[in-house]
């Protein structure tokens, strides 16, 4: 009971600390400190509540146990990371986004395709992964190729829709300007439409980055070699090794956030000119 109380106190303290920090002038440090304090508060509260309420560790382990496991299982976690993130998610992400981008350029060129393909595309995007994953595992085998295929399917449509929208995000005036220079299709594409599409492309890339990781992990539930984050998670649940399960989830969340953050940084560098990136 004491621990439960302590958890609530930690929560309140974290909040008060954050209120104080947020009143300080906005700098890089405060912008990072506030979410960090928030996260630490959440974790401390989790620790206190799990211990205080006596939740069995086969249901929900305390963060400290997860941390210990994280430290002791580095080789396994690394093996899984390579299998799932580097081989499955990343290759699928690159292929899927690349294919979507090329498709977008073709679709954008032919209005007929745009009107025909996009509604159908929206329909296909609604096909649930859990249904597609077993099929793709059946088609592409057990190893990372099928995971990459699932990722390709998952990221393709969000990326396509964003890319098509982005390629059209030029004003009449910008296009007319190109016409007065008698610029051809490719010149217009390279000098005007691609740069103008960047904010949308990055939007698509960001959405796709979280989808890619989830897709690769989920696909492993439907057949895999004896490594990979999805494999480890499902196997460990069966073995009640919940600390390992959570260690994998932490790795997934870290990898996903890093992936997302990396793309956000790249976005900042490439679309520095966009109003949303200026301050």
């Amino acid at each position, binding site marked *: 009971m004491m621990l439960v109380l302590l958890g609530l106190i930690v929560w309140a303290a974290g*909040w008060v600390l*954050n*209120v104080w920090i*947020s*009143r300080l002038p906005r700098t890089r440090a*405060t*912008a990072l400190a*506030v*979410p960090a*304090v*928030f*996260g630490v508060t*959440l974790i401390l509260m989790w620790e206190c509540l799990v211990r205080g309420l006596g939740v069995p560790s086969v*249901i*929900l382990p305390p963060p400290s146990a997860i941390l210990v496991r994280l430290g002791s299982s580095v080789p396994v976690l690394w093996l899984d990371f390579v299998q799932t993130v580097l081989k499955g998610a990343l290759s699928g992400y690159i292929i899927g986004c690349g294919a979507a981008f090329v498709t977008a350029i073709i679709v954008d060129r032919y209005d*007929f*395709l745009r*009107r*025909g*393909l996009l*509604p*159908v595309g*929206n*329909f*296909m*995007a*609604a*096909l*649930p*992964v*859990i*249904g*597609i994953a*077993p*099929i793709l595992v*059946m*088609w592409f085998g057990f190893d990372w190729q099928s995971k990459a295929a699932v990722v390709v399917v998952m990221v393709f449509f969000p990326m396509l829709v964003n890319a098509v929208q982005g390629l059209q995000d030029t004003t009449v005036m910008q296009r007319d300007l190109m016409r007065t220079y008698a610029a051809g299709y490719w010149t217009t594409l390279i000098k005007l439409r691609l740069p103008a599409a960047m904010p949308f492309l990055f939007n698509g890339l960001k959405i796709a980055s*979280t989808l890619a*990781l*989830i897709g690769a*992990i*989920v696909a492993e*539930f*439907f057949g895999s070699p004896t490594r990979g*984050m*999805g494999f480890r*998670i*499902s196997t460990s*649940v069966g073995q009640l090794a*919940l600390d390992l*399960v959570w260690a*994998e*989830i932490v790795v*997934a*969340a870290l*990898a*996903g*956030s890093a*992936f*997302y953050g990396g793309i956000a940084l790249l976005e900042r560098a490439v679309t520095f000119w966009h109003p949303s990136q200026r301050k």
Partner: protein
Amino acid sequence: MMRSVFPVLAVVAVLIAIWYAAAVWLNTPWALDKAKRAEVTLSTSDLIADTWAQDKPKLPAPHQVAIEIWNTTVEKKITSKRSLIYHSWITMSATVLGFALGTALGFALAVGIVYNRVMDMSVMPWVIASQTIPILAIAPMIIVVLNAVGISGLLPKALISMYLSFFPVVVGMVKGLRSPDAMQLDQMRTWNASGGQEFIKLRLPASMPYLFTSMKIAMAASLVGAIVGELPTGAVAGLGARLLAGSYYGQTVQIWSALLMAAALAAVLVGVIGAIQRVTLKRMGLA
């Protein structure tokens, strides 16, 4: 109307043609394998006919799926456990409940982020991180934990739907509630409007286009959540259960019909939001 329908039909026709061709391609090895073991040789037309009529094909032909869907929708009483409509209904109820909860949560968080500086600075990175956690991995744990505190039935599934659907709503609504420009906010100040008035009369209506767009995404996500949630609840009933059972018994035709049904359900639900969007925005003069 024709302008938009014809391209869609053309694309669908091409897709179906590709589908048939792919069915031949993918199902040929098994047909040949079978023929070899039966020690017969197949003519090309026999081979093609076989690839479009296998019991458990790698890829069922479109008409096989169509017939299965017909048999499990029109031909069955909708209360029957073998009716896809019955299963769609079960999935839909979890989807809609989860969607409602997710929209409410996303909305509340967005309001918090827009009006509270601490939340603005702290919540968003964690919301993004939450979405990088593979839901299928924690869904069973969520179900068990909720079970342990005595919650079962529709709600656990709906909570998983909520987990997936609140994200697009937060992102969209934060954008939407912040979409009034400085001038519009200043106007409110010159009229000495209260915080509540500013919200009701300015921020909320200004966010409507964003709200509907994110609700459409949220609805699709919610459906995925409901299907995921059906697996660790014993896959008792619903489209997820059909997918799983199909998978378990290698019934590809059943998998594909459940898949298409799920996509159709998503299309209908998203369409409903689209209709509400059109009516609302029209009445607001925004369409």
